[in-house]
């Protein structure tokens, strides 16, 4: 009986189709998401090319302006996300080491304060103090977005069963080896969820770059809002969504690739 059941799986064709189906099943949302992004972009492009624009709309709804805004927006979001990753993940690791554990509450309070600050207010004060432009925008956004990933790194490492680490040490691993080979791989899913949250957050916050000479998609949203030009406002909004979706997709693809198998 078992032989008969196993029989169909032995032909090469069905093996292939089954594994393809498996891949699709496993990565369904990863494959559908870029299609949705493309569809949304195409719909926007068609709407804009057919729209009858007045003098005010023509200033912002043109290829040069929009591409510049998207480019600035990507610079702002990626750069601030990079600053956040470079600061928050090492900080999170340090704060779970025995020697630095006592600082965890204080650092979390600071990160909480960073997120609770009114973003526009901080931006403008920082701009007046240190000069308006992209650098100040990037560092302000980073201060704003550091909390989720810092918290996730700490939580991800703290949640590991202490017995696992103990047995690793018992097997003769040094603390550094245990961190690299046991703790970090186990914490990766939680840390990466924090990375995704951070990326989406920075895409959203980067729309405020318009207030401090940082450029970005806010240069469409704010005049669209103030001048009651819905087409401009919605274009800025949808482009932000497209950028956020794309970032989210990249982060999820990274999660799929980096997530440890079999642990």
């Amino acid at each position, binding site marked *: 009986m078992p032989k008969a059941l196993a029989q169909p799986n032995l032909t090469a064709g069905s093996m292939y189709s089954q594994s393809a189906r498996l891949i699709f099943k496993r990565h369904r949302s990863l494959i559908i998401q870029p299609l949705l992004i493309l569809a949304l972009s195409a719909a926007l492009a068609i709407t804009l090319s057919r729209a009858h624009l*007045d*003098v*005010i709309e023509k*200033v*912002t709804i043109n290829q040069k302006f929009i591409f510049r805004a998207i480019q600035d927006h990507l610079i702002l979001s990626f750069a601030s996300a990079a600053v956040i990753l470079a600061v928050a993940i090492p900080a999170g690791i340090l704060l779970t080491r025995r020697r630095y554990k006592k600082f965890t509450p204080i650092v979390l309070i600071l990160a909480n304060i960073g997120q609770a600050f009114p973003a*526009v207010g901080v931006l*403008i004060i920082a*701009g*007046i103090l240190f*000069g*308006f*432009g992209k650098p100040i925008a990037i560092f302000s956004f980073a201060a704003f977005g550091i909390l989720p990933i810092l918290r996730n790194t700490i939580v991800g490492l703290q949640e590991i069963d202490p017995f696992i680490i103990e047995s690793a040490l018992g097997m003769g691993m040094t603390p550094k080896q245990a961190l690299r080979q046991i703790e970090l791989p186990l914490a990766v899913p939680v840390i990466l969820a924090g990375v995704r949250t951070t990326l989406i957050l920075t895409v959203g916050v980067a729309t405020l770059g*318009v*207030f*401090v*000479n940082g*450029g970005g998609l*806010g*240069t469409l949203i*704010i*005049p669209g*809002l*103030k*001048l*009651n*030009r819905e087409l*401009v406002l919605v274009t800025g909004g949808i482009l932000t969504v497209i950028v956020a979706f794309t970032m989210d997709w990249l982060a999820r693809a990274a999660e799929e690739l980096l997530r440890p198998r079999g642990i």
Partner: protein
Amino acid sequence: MQVKSHKVVAIAAAIALAVVGSAATSSSANAAGTSLKGVSVIVGSKDFTESIVLSKIVKQFILANGGKVVDKTNIKGSSTTREAMVSGDINMYWEYTGTAWLVYQKQTDVNIAPDVLYKKVVAGDKAAKVTWLPMTSFNDTYAWAITKANATKYGVKTYSDLKKLPAGSAWCVESEFQSRPDGWAGFKKAYSIADSSITTKVLDTGAIYQATKDGQCMVGEVFATDGRIGALGLMVPQEDISYFPPYNAALTMTDATAKKYPQLVKALAPIAAKISNATMQNLNARVDVLGEDADTVAKSFLTASGLVK
């Protein structure tokens, strides 16, 4: 601290004197009138000082004459405020002729005299069922500000003189100004300013005043009646080539409100004539620079100008 607070008091006194001095004899009688008894309205405003102060003047005027007011001032954004009135959430707020013309009526022609523009805007708003009361003489136009020190250093007296500034000087504008038909691109064209000779920075409108004073902006795009121009030692050169349209403020209300309270329309009409450019700058400065409460400023203006006895 002691010295500083004295200085502030002295400035406050000077401004208060200027306001009082411009008015006729003021009465100290504070008894509420009754001419607007039975009037009950919701007064709104946009989200910046001038709009709030103007609406508080209307509010305090109605209260002083025995009417009732619900205060819904400080609504975010021009379009939102206008929507709030058209949909009935508020009954009245102050609008600018230039803004109504360009933004709500979606016109694009900007080279119009103030009174002609007012008539066109009033006519254009009939369809939206919006009534316009008389307009103020002050014109809260877009303006360019530069520090007095730089004006002297580079010999800037007119907007054309701004071209004498060093190459690459930073001009700070807000994002809305970039998009307006009466905005940045048109200005550069009218004054033949080449993009290659300057740096453009896009900033929040409120940040431009301080950034111009600090030197981050050589030239800042500001509002002509803003109290911070004087307070931060900035000056506005002469507009030697006519470019900006007029922005006179006028109280707007729904036709329904105007019909319901004809006595209110009649009573509020004289307010606009009492607010000159200098008066408006003083009132704005009292709130923005001295930190006075907008209601207090409105009340003292009404008494000083003799509108409330």
